[in-house]
């Protein structure tokens, strides 16, 4: 058995860590590229959302690299992500590929199913051992998410362009070999020290922007044209509504963000009064939270035809009006051009900067 999983930002680091601990053979597909997209598009249903198309591409590349077992997450709705694994199976079998599909259904779909899948992924380990592995791997992943959050926030303040990105890369390299609890603690301190050592000019006037939207588009730099780094270099300090560990973990606490699901749902009232699957409710809730916290603007990113975030997009103009905060939505699919997105982003950031300057002048 040679396991593989699709890419989604730094998800591969978590998988590599877990697979190394459980001792199973794995192969990761090459990083998502234009070729991945092309392969995925060839077989995917026309108006499924971009994440499905790209992950199908990932799987094809992984199979070509020798993988025979595809690991995919499941779900219980109402977002169609929960049914992706079945569709991927249908599509890839139809295209003539041979493989096993291993679907990690959330415990909500039945504990037995969940545990059985874990047992396949960790042969010969007891439930307790598996739990320990997940716990420690998650601890490491949370540190990495913390590093990312730090980079998003402070990239705008760096004195030498590109320092933060370099430091972030180095910090992740420091984290990678950490295995035991103690090693993770030591590596974490060292990694954060590297990030903090980056020379910053904290008096710089920066624009604060919150990013909301669908998790895959937010987390995978290939599909969002790495706009986080781009914005950081433009002098925009960012906060994001989705982090990998918050998203994977079933707990409603959202440790990295520090806001519970309940608080997000409360914030979204009365604009959106019920969850609508995916990131629909969080997108609305976070936009309001950002507005209340005095952010200068909100950027929403989501794939074309994404149902939950289309709902959020319909509601965001109201929030923009009522809270007096500029909001821009980007709908991304395989036709989206980088230049188009970046031009609009630049104009948006210019608007935010001049608004901010104006407000400082008139003293609002």
């Amino acid at each position, binding site marked *: 058995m040679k396991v593989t999983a699709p890419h989604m930002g730094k998800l591969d680091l978590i998988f590599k860590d877990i697979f190394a601990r459980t001792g199973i053979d794995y192969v990761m597909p090459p990083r998502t590229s234009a070729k991945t997209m092309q392969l995925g598009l060839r077989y995917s249903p026309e108006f499924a959302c971009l994440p499905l198309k790209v992950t199908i591409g990932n799987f094809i590349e992984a199979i070509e690299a020798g993988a025979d077992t595809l690991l995919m997450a499941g779900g219980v709705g*109402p977002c*169609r992500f929960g049914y992706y694994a079945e569709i991927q199976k249908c*599509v890839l079998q139809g295209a003539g590929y041979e493989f096993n599909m291993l679907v990690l259904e959330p415990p909500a779909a039945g504990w037995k199913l969940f545990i059985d899948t874990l047992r396949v992924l960790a042969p010969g380990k007891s439930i307790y051992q598996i739990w320990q592995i997940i716990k420690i791997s998650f601890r490491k992943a949370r540190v990495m998410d913390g590093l990312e959050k730090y980079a998003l926030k402070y990239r705008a303040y760096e004195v030498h362009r590109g320092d933060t990105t370099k430091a972030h890369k180095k910090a992740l390299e420091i984290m990678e070999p950490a295995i035991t609890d103690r090693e993770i603690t030591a590596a974490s301190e060292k990694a954060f020290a590297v990030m903090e050592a980056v020379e910053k000019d904290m008096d710089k006037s920066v624009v604060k922007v919150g990013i909301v939207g669908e998790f895959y588009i937010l987390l995978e730099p290939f599909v969002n044209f790495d706009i986080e780094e781009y914005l950081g270099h433009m002098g925009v300090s960012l906060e994001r509504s989705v982090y990998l560990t918050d998203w994977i973990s079933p707990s409603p606490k959202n440790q990295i963000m520090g806001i519970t699901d309940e608080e997000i749902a409360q914030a979204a009232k009365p604009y959106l*009064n*019920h969850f*609508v699957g995916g990131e629909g409710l969080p997108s609305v809730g976070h936009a309001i939270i950002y507005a209340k916290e005095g952010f200068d603007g909100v950027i929403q990113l989501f794939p*074309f*035809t994404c149902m939950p975030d289309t709902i959020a997009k319909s*509601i965001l103009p109201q929030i923009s009006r009522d809270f007096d905060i500029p909001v821009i939505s980007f709908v991304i699919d395989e036709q989206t051009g980088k230049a188009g997105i970046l031009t609009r982003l630049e104009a948006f950031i210019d608007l935010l900067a001049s608004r901010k300057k104006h407000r400082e002048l008139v003293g609002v």
Partner: protein
Amino acid sequence: MYFRGTWGCNLALSATIGIPQALLYYKYYPLWEGFLKGLGAEVVSSNVTTKRIVNAGTSVAENELCLPVKIFFGHLIELKDKVDALFVPRVISVEQGTYTCPKFLGLPDLARAVDAKLPKILDPTFNTRLGRRHFYEALFDFGKTFTNSKYKIWRAWMTGVAAQKAYQKKLLAGVSPLEALGGDAGAILSTGDLKIGIAGHPYNVHDPYINLNLIKKLKKWGAQVVTEEMILPRVLEHEANKLPKRLFWSYEREVVGAAFHWLQTRTVDGIIYILSFACGQDSLIQVLLETEAKKHEGIPFMSLVIDEHSGEAGLITRVEAFIDMLRWRSLS
């Protein structure tokens, strides 16, 4: 500014409530009408979709929304000056363990976000996921807007349920929803040499504007038309359960169940699947249906993707070719 499920004030007993003739109208109108009338309200529904309604809807809706939701907005705008309140329930789940479309989960909020000075929006929650008690509590909560008598609310609901049962019986017998709701039942059952199954969401299949009058055209060309409403729910359920993973959307389970049933029993000569562009569920179900149809040789399957730009000529050409092909097959 916003009106939540329960308000301090009671609606006047003679309030006029509008139900848009779109989306779940085709499924639950008799239930909702009976319930609201039982509570003492006047009920008005909008008329069949027209070009004006579509234009009104598409001009206020987000681009990325599907055509049926855009049309729903158009109907809300059509009704806004005629009624005191609009009835836009939040239908979360209609059977254990499933959801409806995410857009239905957020429909009242979407309606409130429409920039068109709409009247009050009544948004009772229908959610069977949390059990019977929860469902009825939400119902009584909503009913309190009209009356304090729990008995009256209960009676109103039962009136609606009875009307709904009668309606579904008619549909099962082959009456189309619009005909059943319009009153002149039994006039349609066409006799043609071909039998075509129309799969798809009822709001696509039964709205003549959305599907460019497809059903009428098929009948004119001498084809008999069957839809999912003409199959027993038990059968739909059984067929939908054949999927390797349980589908978690109720209405899509019915679409899949109907198509699988026709393929399995070979009771139709061909299947036309109507789907709206940008519909999340349809995009995935299309894969499931096409995969299954390939396994059943001899029953041609065609998908028709529809949006606000669909042209009648393009549709006619394709459907005519499909029908010709079916006839040609039965000859050879």
